[in-house]
């Protein structure tokens, strides 16, 4: 889809990160570093929750920045910078998942991540609670693990949409652009994702065991 001059101008005026990226296009190293500092933690967290591994998250975030650098000369603002960046991140994550799936196919057992226990995330959520009394208010670390496992019950698309909506506070329209789907499809995707999360976290909702505040 071609981007009109007026659209490009509008995003340039509205979004300071778009302006930085335009400086990157003109080979400004300082602007690139600034963008990297602004987005590195957000990208790493996104990749971490998408892929489930910290070291891989950093590698993938680097891959995203590398792609940003490589495509700088053809950059034309057709959306917010973050939307463009997360579109790249979504592609990088999809590619990584595909190669991981290929590698798993090669493995004889295709075992789960480092002997994490039961394959079903819902069973693992139950295990994460360590057979404790359900009424016990679990601590933040335990809750983090429970929620992480609940996230594993979602499929890749649902997880991506949830992360973009929750942590990047992106609108349905921006998530739709990022994931190459319609706004209606995103609405449906997010509602299913949140329903799944609700089911996975049901025991903790029932007991009102909310995570302790920061």
């Amino acid at each position: 889809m071609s981007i009109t001059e007026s659209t490009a101008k509008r995003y340039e005026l509205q979004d300071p990160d778009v302006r930085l990226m335009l400086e990157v296009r003109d080979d400004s190293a300082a602007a690139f570093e600034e963008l990297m500092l602004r987005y590195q933690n957000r990208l790493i967290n996104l990749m971490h929750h998408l892929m489930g591994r910290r070291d891989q998250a950093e590698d993938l975030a680097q891959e995203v920045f590398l792609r940003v650098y490589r495509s700088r000369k053809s950059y034309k603002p057709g959306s917010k910078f973050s939307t463009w960046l997360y579109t790249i991140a979504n592609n990088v994550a999809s590619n990584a998942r595909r190669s991981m799936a290929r590698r798993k196919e090669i493995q004889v057992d295709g075992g789960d991540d480092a002997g994490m226990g039961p394959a079903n995330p819902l069973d693992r959520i139950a295990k994460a609670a360590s057979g404790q009394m359900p009424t016990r208010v679990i601590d933040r670390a335990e809750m983090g693990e429970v929620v992480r496992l609940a996230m594993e019950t979602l499929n890749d698309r649902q997880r991506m949409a949830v992360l973009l909506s929750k942590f990047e506070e992106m609108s349905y329209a921006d998530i739709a652009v990022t994931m190459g789907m319609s706004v209606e499809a995103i609405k449906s995707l997010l509602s299913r994702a949140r329903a799944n999360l609700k089911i996975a976290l049901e025991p903790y909702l029932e007991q009102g065991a909310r995570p302790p505040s920061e």
Partner: protein
Amino acid sequence: MSTPQDNNMVPVEDAEQQLVAYLDGELSEDERIVVEARLADDYDYRLRLQRLERAWDMLDSLPRVEASDQFVHTTVEMISVAASQELETIQVRQKSRSWRIAAITGAAAVAAAVLGFAWISQSASRQNEELLTELPLIENMDRYQKVDEVEFLERLRSEGLFVSEVDDGV
């Protein structure tokens, strides 16, 4: 327990979608009013909203990670490697371009030489042709110069004086 039996109520799946969109602030004004009206009347619907909201809030306890100290450094290194590769590609492209330019220039020079030679040979042969045509005139130039009037020459020709020269010339 209320179930969506009323025709005005959306089916369960749509109701869930509307609740999620409501929480995300993605409903139009009219849709929002409908959802809020139902929330005011329907306890189960309210409960579902609370559970969705609570599950959503629980995501805040997902562990947050920060970039390692080496992250910027290693990323910058990766970028500089990419930049030097890019530069290398450009240089190779430029080199092949200058070779192409040299080849084109050489070919153009050869073509110009061939064309020049052809043109010179052609114009030389044209000059020779002219000389051949004018040979009788050139041979008798001294005689012609001694005659003042063209009419006199015409008269001599009509009397058949130049027959042999004309035959030789043709």
